[in-house]
């Protein structure tokens, strides 16, 4: 995981492109909600090179950046940081890719994590921090 450039260097004038320009002005993702720690992974056959022409037309460069970044499973919030895009924008892009059948999105379990074994593992690991 390569660290991003430090936050202090961000241009105070704000982004050149308004954030929702890359989503054609949409501010809500299509389909089911996508949590900020939902894990996104590109479906095996989905590589940028292998996109159908039709898919490529309806996807923008930011979609392709997302697709490239989730070749291994990655959480939505991490995608936003990695790509330096606002969380809301990344969610919309991910939802678009999901509609195209290019990514798989795994939501967290609604009531937290109902798996005691995993929680104990987390507690032990935290104690060792």
């Amino acid at each position, binding site marked *: 995981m390569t660290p991003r450039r430090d936050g202090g260097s961000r241009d105070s004038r704000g982004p050149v492109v308004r954030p929702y320009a890359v989503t054609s002005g949409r501010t809500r993702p299509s389909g089911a909600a996508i949590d900020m720690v939902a*894990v996104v992974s590109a479906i095996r056959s989905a590589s940028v090179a292998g996109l159908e022409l039709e898919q490529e037309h309806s996807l923008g460069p930011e979609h392709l950046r997302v697709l490239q970044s989730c070749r291994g499973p990655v959480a939505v919030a991490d995608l936003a940081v990695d790509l330096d895009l606002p969380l809301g*924008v990344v969610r919309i892009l991910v939802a678009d890719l999901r509609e195209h059948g290019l990514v798989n999105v795994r*939501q967290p379990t609604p009531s937290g*994590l109902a798996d005691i074994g995993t929680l104990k593992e*987390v507690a032990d*690991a935290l*104690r060792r921090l």
Partner: protein
Amino acid sequence: MPYGDSEAVPDRIRPPVAIKILIAGGFGVGKTTLVSAVSEVRPLRTEETMSEPSALVDQLDGVELKSTTTVAMDFGRIAISEDLVVYLFGTPGQKRFWFMWDELAYGALGAVVMADTRRLADCFPSVDYFERRGMPFVVAVNCFDDARRYPRDTMRAALNLTPDVPLVLCDARQRGSSRDVLVALVEHAVTRLDGGRHATSAI
């Protein structure tokens, strides 16, 4: 549903598990400090759509009175293993961002409500929120150098905490101390899952 647990992540024995923990509390209580002390902080921002106050009275048919505002969030990451990551999210304290809370809380393991004894009331809304939601939470009293110390029972009473909710003292600047807060939360969540809820009435 167009998605779900499927075979799309065939390369791993277990799909990556993301655990979400919320860090709540009033403005300036030490949320950012705690997240920085214990995790790898990452610059996360979100653009939220806000409806303008309807003080603008003109009927502008077809023009949405909405604007986006950038919210920088405290966001930290603790990689437990390659496929198990704990994410810490500082909940934006200001009232106008409360609409984000439900979303933040969805699927969360639990919450740390940070408190400052000099401004205890600042954490009441957070305590209320997690109580209502039935989400496991611990109260972490951040012991600022110049703040008066109170007995634990006094603080519990002031917060009107139910007996099962842990109250821990911490120094959010200290990694070990902040870590202990998270451990207390995870243990509390385990106890509740284990059926520890029955113990509540016994105290």
